[in-house]
C-alpha cells in the first residue's frame, strides 16, 4: 500500500521518515552495550548484532542461559530481540530470523554444536542471507528449503544462480571461512580487585585503593586520558556498598595527587565486617596529553600545581568555599564584584578606575546607623554604629550612585544612594551612605557599608 492510499484510509496517520544513519548509530551503541556478554561484538546488517560467545557461555551458566539473559535484559530496555546461538555466524543469522515456531516476541534459541546441518535443512532458502531475486529464483526452481540444496552439486548451483548461493551455504555449514571484524573494544576506565579474605583495617583499604589508582592511572595514560571524576565503590560482605567520589579541576592521572584526594575521603568509609571487593572507576575522563617530566627534579608546572591545590581544597571544603573575584563594570558596590570558580577561563577583570575610591572591606549587607547631619544634604557630624559613637572629623562626598533601574525589583533597589567617606576622630575611615532622595517629611536613613585603609 502506498502512503497516499494509507492516508486516504486514515487521515490522522502519523508519518515518520526513516533515518537510516540514526538507526545504524543506535545499533552500534546497542552492540557496545552487548560487550558485557562477549568482548567480540559487531553490528551485522541493519538489524542484527553478532557476538562471538566462544568461551563466554560458562560465565552465565551455559549457552541457553546466556541467550536467555541477553534477550531478557534487552526486553527490559523495551527492545524485542531474537537471539540464536549456533556453530557459524550464518547459521545463527538464519535461526534468529527464520525459526518459524513463533512470530513476534523475544526468542532465544540454541542450536547444539554439530546439529546445524540437520536443523538448517528445514529452514527456507531465504535464511541463507541471499538477495531476494536469487531466493525467488531458487523457489521457482523448486528448491524451497535449505535441505534441498544439500544434494545439488556446487557447480550446478554456481552455473544457475551465481557463486553467492554456494558460498552462503558453505558459510552457514561451516565449510567456508567467514572472517568478520569486531568493534574496537571500549577502553577500560576502571580497575577492580577482589579479596580472598575480606579486609577491614584502614591501612588495608588505603593500600588497596592506592594500588587500584596506580593501575587505573596507567590505563588512562595508555589512552592519553586524565580523570575528571573518580568513583570508588567498596562492596561489603553484608551486601552494602560504601562509596567515595572525588573530582578534579583539570584532567589528571597523577597518582600522588589523586591519592591525596582519596586520603581525605577514606576515613569516612565504614568497612563494617569487611570488604570483599573494591572497584575504582573514572566516571569522567578527558583528553590529557602526555606530560613532559621535569629535568633533574625541577617541576616548573605552576598551573598544574595550582589545580592540584584547588582540588585538595575543594575536595575538603566543597566547591562553594573557593572563588576568584572578578571586577565588573557596575557602579553598585554589591554588584561590582562577581565570584567565579577559581580556574574558570574567560572571566577577565575589568580594570578599576583608581579615581573611584572604594573600601577594602565591604559589609555583605549595609548596616543601618543612627546619624546626625545638620543639613539634609550634608555628611553626618556624628554617627552610632554597633553601640559606639563616632564623631566625624572630616569627610568627602557625596558620590551619588544611582540604582540600575533595569534590574530593580523592589523599592529599596531603585533608590539612589549618596555615599560619603568620613573619618572619625580616632582615624577610622568609613563608607556611609544615605538612602533615597531628600524628602522633608521623612527622616533620612543612613547606612554603613565599608571600611577604608
Amino acid at each position: 500500500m502506498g502512503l497516499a492510499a494509507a492516508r486516504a484510509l486514515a487521515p490522522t496517520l502519523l508519518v515518520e521518515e526513516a533515518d537510516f544513519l540514526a538507526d545504524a548509530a543506535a545499533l552500534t551503541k546497542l552492540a557496545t552495550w552487548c560487550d558485557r556478554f562477549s568482548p567480540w561484538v559487531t553490528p551485522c546488517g541493519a538489524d542484527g548484532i553478532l557476538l562471538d560467545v566462544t568461551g563466554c557461555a560458562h560465565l552465565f551458566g551455559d549457552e541457553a542461559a546466556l541467550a536467555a539473559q541477553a534477550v531478557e535484559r534487552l526486553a527490559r530496555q523495551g527492545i524485542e530481540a531474537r537471539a540464536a546461538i549456533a556453530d557459524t555466524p550464518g547459521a545463527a543469522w538464519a535461526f534468529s530470523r527464520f525459526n518459524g515456531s513463533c512470530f513476534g516476541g523475544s526468542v532465544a534459541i540454541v542450536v547444539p554444536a554439530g546439529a546445524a546441518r540437520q536443523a538448517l535443512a528445514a529452514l527456507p532458502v531465504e535464511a541463507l542471507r541471499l538477495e531476494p531475486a536469487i531466493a525467488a529464483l531458487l523457489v521457482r526452481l523448486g528448491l524451497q528449503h535449505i535441505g534441498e540444496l544439500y544434494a545439488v552439486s556446487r557447480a550446478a548451483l554456481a552455473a544457475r544462480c551465481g557463486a553467492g548461493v554456494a558460498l552462503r551455504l558453505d558459510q552457514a555449514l561451516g565449510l567456508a571461512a567467514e572472517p568478520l571484524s569486531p568493534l574496537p573494544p571500549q577502553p577500560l576506565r576502571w580497575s577492580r580487585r577482589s579479596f580472598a579474605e575480606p579486609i577491614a583495617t584502614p591501612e588495608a583499604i588505603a593500600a588497596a585503593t592506592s594500588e587500584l589508582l596506580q593501575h587505573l592511572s596507567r590505563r588512562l595514560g595508555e589512552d592519553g586520558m586524565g580523570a575528571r571524576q573518580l568513583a570508588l565503590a567498596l562492596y561489603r560482605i553484608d551486601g552494602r556498598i560504601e562509596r567515595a567520589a572525588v573530582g578534579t579541576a583539570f584532567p589528571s592521572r597523577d597518582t600522588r595527587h589523586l591519592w591525596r584526594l582519596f586520603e581525605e575521603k577514606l576515613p569516612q568509609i565504614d568497612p563494617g565486617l569487611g570488604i570483599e571487593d573494591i572497584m575504582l572507576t573514572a566516571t569522567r575522563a578527558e583528553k590529557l596529553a602526555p606530560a613532559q617530566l621535569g629535568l633533574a627534579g625541577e617541576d616548573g608546572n605552576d598551573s598544574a600545581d595550582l589545580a592540584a591545590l584547588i582540588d585538595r581544597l575543594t575536595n575538603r571544603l566543597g566547591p562553594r568555599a573557593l572563588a576568584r573575584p572578578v571586577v565588573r563594570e557596575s557602579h553598585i558596590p554589591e554588584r561590582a564584584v562577581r565570584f567565579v570558580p577559581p580556574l574558570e577561563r574567560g572571566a577577565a577583570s575589568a580594570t578599576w578606575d583608581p579615581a573611584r575610591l572604594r573600601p577594602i572591606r565591604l559589609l555583605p549587607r549595609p548596616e543601618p546607623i543612627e546619624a546626625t547631619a545638620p543639613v539634609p544634604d550634608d555628611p553626618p557630624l556624628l554617627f552610632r554604629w554597633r553601640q559606639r559613637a563616632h564623631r566625624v572629623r572630616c569627610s568627602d562626598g557625596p558620590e551619588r550612585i544611582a540604582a540600575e533601574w533595569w534590574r530593580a525589583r523592589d523599592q529599596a533597589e531603585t533608590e539612589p544612594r549618596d555615599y560619603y567617606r568620613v573619618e572619625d576622630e580616632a582615624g577610622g575611615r568609613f563608607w556611609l551612605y544615605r538612602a533615597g532622595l531628600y524628602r522633608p517629611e521623612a527622616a533620612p536613613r543612613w547606612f554603613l557599608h565599608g571600611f577604608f585603609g
Partner: protein
Amino acid sequence: MAVEVLKNARQVRLVELRHYLAAAEGLGQTAGSVLPFAIPAIDSALPWGGLPLAALHAVESAGAGKDGAAAMFLAGILARLAPARPVLWCLPQADLHAPGLALAGLAAARLLLVRVPQEREILWVLEEGLRSRALAAVVGEVDALSIAASRRLQLAAENSGVTAFVLQRSGEQAAAASAAVTRWRVAALPSAPAVGEPGIGQALWRVELLRCRGGMPAAWEVEACNAAGHVALSAALADRPAVRQLRAAG
C-alpha cells in the same frame, strides 16, 4: 692597637654567630629573598634589610572590628611580591572588596579567596597552600594563633618558599608568643589635613613592629600605601627629625 684588633675579632665572631643562628632558625636559605619597604628607616630596623620571604609574619589590627588599615598594609606587601603568582586569602566571611584591594595594587586576578568559617580549617587551608609552589603567599584571617600552629606554618613556609601572613583582625586576642618571624600592628591615624581644601587628606597609619626575630621593636608614622603598594614616610613628618621614630614599649 691591640684593643682595635680584639674589637675586630669580636665583630667577626659576632657576624659568624648571627649567620649560625639564622641558619639554625631556618632563615639561612632565604637570605637572598627579601622584600624591602624601600624606606631606609623601616628596612634598617629589620635585620634582613626588608621583609624576609618564605617565613611567617603576623599583622594585627589595632582597632576592634575595623581592620581596614591592617588589611591595606598587607595588600600593599602582597602587591609587591614578585613574581606575580596568585595569593591565597582565607577568611571567615567574604567581606574583602576587590576594587579596594586594587587601589593598593593587588589585582583581583591574583586573588584566590577561600571562605571557611572555622578557625581550625583556616589553618589547614594555610598549610595546604604553603605546600604548593604555585602561590606567592597565603593569608589567613584568624583571631588566635597558638604557638604550635604558628610553628607549623613557619616550618611549612620555610620548606616551600611561599610566604605566610596571619591577619589578626582583633588585636586583643593576639598571643604574645608565636613562631612568626615578625609581628606588626597597624592602626589608622587621623589623615593629614589637605592644604586649603576640606575633606579627607592623605591617609596616615601608625605601623608598629612589635616583635622581630633578631631585631628591636620600632614604630613609624607612614602614609597609607599607594597604587603600587608602597608606603612612604609622610613628607610633612619626615621633616621633623627623629620625632616620629618611636620606640615601642615592649
